[in-house]
């Protein structure tokens, strides 16, 4: 405090330099060694900063689409760690490893720190002023660009940023907003709509005594893994539920199953109909499905099913009897069921079991209807990318924007996406780091990471009611030359609809107004300001909505599965299973050291790609762990090391997705291979989605071999030691436990 009664902080505030103004220099503190002026934040701490004490701020995790509520541990103005937010019904105060790695995205050494412009064939730094002028020149109101000449590709998005994006597209009179996710739930949503009339029913794991999962890796990937893990924990408490997993390659969820069944990829629907056939023989299930379906299903006797699926015939009756004994049950399907030309049929066949068993209404019911449909997520799809790719190929675009997706990396090579993108005269990427797509763009704009940004999010799987998770910055922007995507979008909209948006100088004020407008819906009675700050500190708004009514209906036409699902292919004898790693997903976070060094749960391999091959197949081909293999499809070849893995069907080869980057940064570039590249143009016939599991490959030994870097030791069993002891469920007395 100086004699005049004004302390330094107030002085800075008068100057309009409060907030992040600690970087001001010239106050006389100089470094003894270098003579540089240094900042002494501990002497004059910022508001809300107590030196040495951590403060936790609520926000939303944006590492995947689950929109978990999280808390960021902030100390001295830096975010140090992510934790779950207990107020969030989605996360329940928990967090996965992918979510933890948000801080490594924030402090990533390979972040893009300034705008770049393509000069010749390389990207050169330019100023924001020049970048925005260029953006305005090419896409602004004076550019004369028409709606049909402009395309905007984004990842799945929700909340107010999505609203702004929609409004921007409207202001341009453009219908070319392409929402693309390489690993999209589109086929699953289509099957759900067909059966239940809703995109996504609510699943009650905790009420089920038996879960039969056809390839749904709900613990690792999928709609909401942290939430489903908590539900799974309830399901495993007394009375302990049983988990049966049927899939071509053992996922992490499969590793936790009481019974794991290997199946030929694409024949899951046949197995489900085989079970249905057995069940419908019980008198108690007669009348649960129409007669034509009973007739259709009756063709699937155990021997036929066994022949098609490659599963031992007695297991059909076995799973059927488990389902008959343990009610209520829950039957779900996942990516390996849906990623085929007949994906919707496959998934519908799986859902048929729920109808026969009377699970609909017991373990499956409707999610709450959101009173704010505008905030609801736009689920991504592959067909969006396909549509955009075709238009680019036909030279229809003058400009495209890309945000939240890396299509050059995730598009299969048969699409020629990179070449088509190059045809567009003006391409803009909004990114945190230079990925493969940004490298191709003419203008690359560095935006805030999720922990620097304001926002609102709504997940597409809602456990209870509707949860709007609020995103608030956990720290000031790390680099002065990065900008908020929200601000950029708002300015873009303002350029065309100035009057409607003039009330808001920035995205923050826009979001604040929008959130305060939710107040009456949640019956909050205090002032607007209190509501805003309560909302920020809670991190979530819970809105009750009437649950959607869910009833199932089935048509026999949706259950006609192709007889040739397991046809032999002499040139490409193996089924390719491009598996989704739970911390890599489509590969957008591959440049995090923590994730690269986090062992894959099933193989314990780190920092690499690998090809899983069954011991029987490996023995017949003379393949050992570490042998370099050439895995070839009609559309390309990958060189990858073999990992002999018992949890895979002998006719399948599994390579994990997410690696094989040519760009993105030091931890990702040149690590492993990218199976997206060699996928064949097989499409789900009802939705037009890429059939991710529809590619056949050949395997050839190269003769070279190299050590596989993994956590697992030379011995992969317990060698009789009592390390993990297994107790039979009928001996355990979980109800007596605390």
């Amino acid at each position, binding site marked *: 405090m100086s004699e005049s009664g004004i302390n330094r902080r107030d002085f800075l505030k008068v100057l309009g330099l409060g907030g992040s103004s600690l970087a001001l220099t010239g106050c006389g503190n100089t470094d003894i060694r270098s003579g540089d002026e240094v900042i002494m934040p501990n002497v004059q701490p910022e508001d809300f900063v107590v030196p040495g004490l951590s403060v936790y701020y609520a926000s939303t995790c944006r590492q995947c689409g689950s929109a978990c509520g999280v808390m960021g541990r902030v100390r001295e103005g*830096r975010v*140090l*760690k*992510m934790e779950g937010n207990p107020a969030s019904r989605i996360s329940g105060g928990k967090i996965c490893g992918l979510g933890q790695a948000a801080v490594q995205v924030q402090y990533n*050494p390979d972040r893009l720190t300034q705008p770049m412009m393509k000069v010749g064939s390389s990207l050169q730094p330019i100023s924001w002023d020049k970048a925005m002028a260029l953006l305005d020149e090419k896409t602004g109101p004076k550019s004369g660009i028409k709606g049909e000449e402009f395309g905007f590709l984004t990842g799945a998005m929700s909340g107010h940023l999505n609203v702004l994006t929609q409004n921007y597209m409207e202001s341009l009179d453009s219908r070319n907003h392409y929402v693309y996710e390489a690993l999209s739930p589109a086929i699953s949503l289509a099957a759900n709509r067909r059966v239940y009339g809703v995109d996504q029913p609510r699943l009650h794991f905790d009420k089920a005594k038996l879960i039969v999962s056809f390839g749904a890796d709900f613990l690792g990937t999928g709609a909401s893994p942290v939430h489903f893990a908590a539900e799974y924990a309830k399901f495993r408490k007394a009375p302990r539920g049983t988990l049966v997993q049927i899939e071509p390659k053992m996922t992490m969820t499969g590793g936790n199953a009481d019974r794991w069944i290997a199946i030929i990829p694409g024949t899951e629907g046949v197995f489900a109909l085989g079970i249905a056939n057995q069940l419908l023989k019980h008198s108690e299930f007669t009348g649960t499905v129409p007669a034509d379906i009973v007739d259709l299903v009756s063709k699937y006797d155990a021997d036929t099913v066994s022949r098609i699926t490659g599963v031992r015939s007695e297991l059909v009756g076995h799973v059927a009897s488990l389902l008959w004994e343990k009610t209520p049950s829950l039957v779900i399907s996942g990516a390996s069921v849906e990623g085929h030309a007949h994906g919707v049929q496959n998934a519908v066949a799986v859902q048929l079991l729920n109808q026969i068993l009377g699970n609909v209404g017991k373990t499956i019911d409707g999610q709450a209807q959101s009173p704010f449909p505008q905030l609801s997520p736009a689920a991504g799809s592959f067909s969006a990318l396909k549509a955009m790719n075709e238009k680019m190929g036909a030279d229809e675009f003058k400009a495209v924007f890309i945000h939240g997706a890396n299509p050059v990396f995730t598009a299969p090579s048969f699409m020629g996406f990179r070449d088509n993108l190059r045809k567009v005269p003006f391409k803009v990427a909004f990114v945190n780091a230079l990925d493969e797509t940004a490298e191709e763009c003419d203008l690359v704009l560095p935006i805030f990471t999720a922990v620097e940004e304001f926002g609102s999010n709504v997940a597409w799987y809602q456990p209870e009611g509707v949860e709007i998770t609020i995103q608030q910055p956990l720290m000031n922007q790390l680099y002065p030359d990065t900008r908020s995507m929200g601000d950029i979008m708002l300015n873009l909209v303002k350029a065309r609809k100035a009057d409607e948006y003039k009330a808001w100088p920035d995205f923050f004020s826009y979001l604040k107004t929008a959130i305060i407008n939710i107040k009456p819906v949640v019956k909050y009675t205090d002032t607007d300001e209190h509501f805003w700050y309560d909302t920020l500190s809670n991190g979530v708004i819970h809105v009750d909505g009437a649950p959607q009514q869910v009833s199932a209906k089935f048509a026999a036409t949706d259950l006609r599965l192709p007889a040739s699902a397991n046809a032999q292919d002499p040139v490409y004898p193996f089924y390719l299973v491009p598996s989704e790693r739970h911390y890599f997903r489509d590969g957008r976070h591959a440049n995090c050291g923590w994730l690269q060094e986090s062992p894959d749960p099933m193989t314990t391999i780190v920092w690499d790609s690998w090809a899983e091959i069954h011991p029987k197949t490996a023995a017949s081909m003379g393949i050992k762990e570490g042998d370099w293999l050439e895995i070839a499809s009609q559309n390309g070849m990958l060189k990858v090391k073999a990992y002999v893995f018992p949890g895979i069907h002998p006719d399948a080869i599994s390579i994990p997705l997410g690696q094989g980057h040519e760009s993105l940064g030091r931890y990702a570039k040149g690590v492993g291979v990218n199976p997206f590249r060699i996928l064949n143009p097989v499409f789900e016939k009802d939705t037009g989605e890429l059939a991710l599991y529809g590619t056949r490959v050949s395997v050839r030994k190269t003769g070279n071999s190299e050590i596989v870097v993994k956590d697992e030791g030379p011995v992969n069993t317990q060698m009789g030691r009592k390390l993990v002891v297994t107790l039979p469920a009928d001996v*355990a007395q979980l109800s007596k436990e605390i």
Partner: protein
Amino acid sequence: MSITNLLNNWSFYRQKRPFRGQYDLNKQYSEYKWAMALDLDICTGCNACTTACYAENNLPVVGKERYQHGYAMHWIRIERYWDENMGEFPESGTSFLPMMCQQCEEAPCETVCPVGATNHTNDGLNSQNYHRCIGSRYCSVNCPYKVRYFNFWNYPSTAWPSPLQDQLNPDLTVRTKGVMEKCTFCVQRLNEAKSRARTEYRLVKDGEVVPACVQACPTNAITFGNIVDPKSKVAKMWKNQQVDLYKDEQEKDSSMRGYRILEDLRPFPSVMYMERVRDMEA
């Protein structure tokens, strides 16, 4: 330890450990004994705990080549085992085992340290004094769980390229070349909680503090607490599972799932695991 302390508490220090009553609120030796219970039936092997540990404890990312040579610094790791009598397929899934320092009461690592860098704290932790450690690595050799990690390299100079160092947790050090390190049950969190409780003239409440792995675990498979406090959840679980901290061979009902790994080596671990359950009829 001062010689006065040693002489004043001769009977306490002369006893072979652990001795019954060593951790007892009534006897005032120690108010805290940190312990865990880990349910292997709901552990899904997801590695949320291991990543949380990297974030909390400033663990370096060592890279592929060093990982290959066994230099990984993961204080907690998930081991994965296949069943020995597996047929063509692992039909009953796999077994995941989160393995971290078991904070043994009679820790094999402590007795072999030539400089006393690793020793037992009053609240039952097996501590590592980085300043005293000379890097003999005897402790690591003697550890039956292989959960001690040695800094063969100068990670502070390579593992956090700028600005990754801004993420580092200021509550604990970044270890340099030549010292051994290991899971501490997030001792920086425990100390903060203990100190806060002390200023309020109370003991740390159950659930007030948990290590990073416990906090992250999406299935709540790990329970952590003060086993001295009979009302704590972890103490109730140990009692319920009939696992006795002071015994090297438990006498329990076969239906109860509690056990400690490699108990017969007599290290008296502070982590109770609960057996994986499988529905054999499935």
